[in-house]
């Protein structure tokens, strides 16, 4: 009998998810032994045409990382959806939009102006912008058009499972692959990680006071960070309590606050809103003015609480800059 076919694909991602697969290290050999990698652009030379040639549901599972930002990416994931029995959204970008999703704070045109005009070292007196099609002497060159709004994978195609993390922790990847190969799968739509918040696996949990309340929020560089004490208790915006566990609290171990790449737990609909609710509850003041003052050190609410999940949030993107948005 032939080995199950597996595909890996990247959309709007940084390649870190591929690296994460490479970081399976020796384990990758077991995986390779157990499956046929039918498609993996970063490492193998198979092309889209190879995929098109496949019968439907030919691949047992396709792991897709990255957010969706152009029609090519959409077409490709739709194709892969057809060819795969299971589609797994691999990593924060595919699951929640990820850091590229922060682009949803702006219009595409803002981006173009910044990158091709405003940036300090750009020399562009002709105000030249990349164009979908350019006529050069020899012919016509085309570029794909980027969308204004970055999307999560499941906003474009049906997704069976999610592997959270930026990138997904190696052990979660192996567990997931294992479960899939063994056919031991949870309910469709499940997130293949423990449904409990990070504090549960954080070595510093016991150092967190039972009744924590904060008079001031600190930015990581402003203080000598105590390597033992709960970071939130030190006034740092550690989002571990709002964030799904599974990474072993890697950032906290490096003495830095959790920024939430693993996304929320199952019960939570909107990561940022929930974070706000939890964090604000800890403010040690009932006076509106003082509350405002305390909040001034939360300098970037959107970027902080939606660092990885803006496209997946209930608002999806900055409102005034959405096409109709802002038009009064």
């Amino acid at each position, binding site marked *: 009998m032939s080995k199950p076919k597996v595909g890996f694909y990247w959309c709007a991602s*940084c390649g870190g998810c591929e690296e994460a697969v490479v970081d399976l290290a020796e384990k*990758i050999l077991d995986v390779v032994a157990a499956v046929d990698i039918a498609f993996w652009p*970063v490492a193998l*030379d198979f092309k889209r045409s190879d995929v098109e040639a496949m019968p439907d549901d030919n691949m047992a599972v396709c792991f897709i990382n990255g957010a969706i930002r152009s029609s090519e990416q959409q077409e490709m994931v739709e194709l892969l959806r057809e060819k795969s029995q299971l589609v797994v959204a691999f990593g924060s970008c595919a699951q929640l939009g990820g850091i590229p999703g922060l682009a949803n704070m702006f219009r595409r045109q803002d981006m173009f102006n910044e990158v091709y005009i405003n*940036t300090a070292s750009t020399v562009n007196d002709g105000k030249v*912008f990349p164009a979908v099609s350019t006529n050069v002497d020899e*012919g016509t060159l085309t570029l794909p058009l980027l969308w204004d709004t970055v999307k999560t994978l499941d906003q474009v195609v049906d997704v069976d499972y999610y592997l959270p993390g930026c990138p997904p922790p190696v052990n979660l990847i192996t567990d997931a692959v294992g479960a899939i190969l063994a056919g031991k799968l949870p309910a469709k739509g499940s997130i293949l990680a423990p449904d409990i918040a990070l504090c549960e696996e954080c070595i510093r949990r016991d150092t967190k006071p039972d009744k924590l309340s904060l008079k001031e929020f600190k930015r990581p560089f402003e203080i*000598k960070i105590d390597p033992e004490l709960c970071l939130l208790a030190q006034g740092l915006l550690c989002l571990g309590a709002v964030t799904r566990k599974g990474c072993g609290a890697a950032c906290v171990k*490096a003495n830095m606050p959790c920024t939430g790449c693993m996304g929320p737990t199952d019960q939570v609909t909107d990561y940022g809103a929930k974070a706000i609710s939890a964090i604000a509850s800890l403010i040690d003041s009932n006076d509106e003015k003082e509350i405002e003052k305390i909040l001034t050190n939360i300098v970037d609410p959107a970027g902080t609480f939606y660092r990885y999940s803006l496209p997946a949030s209930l608002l999806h993107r900055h409102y005034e800059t959405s096409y109709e948005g802002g038009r009064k």
Partner: protein
Amino acid sequence: MNHKITIDPITRLEGHGKIDIFLNDSGNVEKAYLQVPELRGFERFAQGRPAEDMPQITSRICGVCPTAHHMASAKTLDDLYKVNPPIAAKKIRELIYNIFFIEDHALHFFYLAGPDFVVGPKAPKAERNILGVLGKVGIETGKEVIAMRRQLRELMALVAGKAIHPVFGLPGGISKGIAKEDQQKFIDVSNRAVEFGQFSLKLFNDVVLKNPQYVDYITSDIYTHRTYYMGLVDANNKSNYYEGKLRIVKPDGSEFLKITGAEYLAHIGEHVESWSYIKFPFLKDIGWKGFVDGPDSGIFAVAPLARLNASEGMATPLAQEAYEQFYQVLGKKPVHFTLANSWARLVELLYSAERMRELASDPDIVSPDIHTIPTKIPIEGIGVVEAPRGTLIHHYKTDERGIITSANLIVATQNNAARIALSIDKAAKGLISKGNVDDGILNMIEMAFRAYDPCHGCATHALPGQMPLVVSVYDYQRNLVKEIKRE
């Protein structure tokens, strides 16, 4: 007849590229274009974010060289807050950075470019990959490579939090140091790393240099451009990746400029073409003269070959030997053979391993004093490092609260963009004639590209992606007469 060939995407590189080749009526290449079809606009959405978040945000430009962005960003923050990290922090940063260099160079050689040499450019594509390499060099060697990378990345994670997307960089230092009991691990692994570096060079010797056909490739004119070269060097003009001055040499090898990172704006500009999302850096002192090489064109190169050319040697003994052998074999400095990058990369790998060994045993690195708390009001900061794929420049301006008001990023591969474009064009011209195009030839064109280990994830801070490879053949009226799908 006029043909247009599209190689899309170039596989086995981090990121996303697209090559269009136009043939004239005789079926020879008229011009080949490199296109990078995406953009993420980090410069834009950096705005409004607190500066201290940039090391973690910009690392997402590229998951292959996140450490490079993280480090450049952290150094930019030092400059932004005008704060000096304690000596331990500096050394730990450089230690981690060299560890990263080793594993990243290894990744490129064995996983990405390696197949071209080890397995062979014309081998069937199903073998032209890491698995093919394993087949060739033997599963045991393969396992060693894998194990080496694993050990290195575990050490990185130990300090930086995560190997992919580190978190330990702060303005004024780092968030976590090295515990005394862990130092030995670093020493042990560094010893293995040095051996690994030597092994890799030997492998290159045996598999590549001993194969005259490959040497011909490397030295053949189609993979040769006479451009300027840029790289960071220390006080003795020895190559350095973490800090130093930017040294730029002329195509004839003589020093053209030696500047601090802070001076970059005066000398480096970025040119925009409407047919690519990537911007093309050039030397302002010379100016943008289009896609031509030579001393009169502002086009310059970065990355391993460029770094060797821009330096006067390596700061460690074994690497210095390898450096000398490199020029001995390939002729006098500067070497203009693009494909020599793969060899230069292994020379660097060895240097990083030796440097790692030096730093790992340095008593300073176990000091707990790793963070100087910034006190100055932030205004503007510039940070430069050598990423594996070349010089990487971060430049932020902020308001008085340290919120980014503007960010400028000139990223490793991007510095090579213009020269890569030349390589593609030249390689295509050299390899395609009478309109006959086969998979191997296309791959060899890709090799010209892959040699730079270009990371277009970085280069455009773009979203890597995948598109089909199509060879479209057009007649002189631009009608599609033939389409070869690459199978």
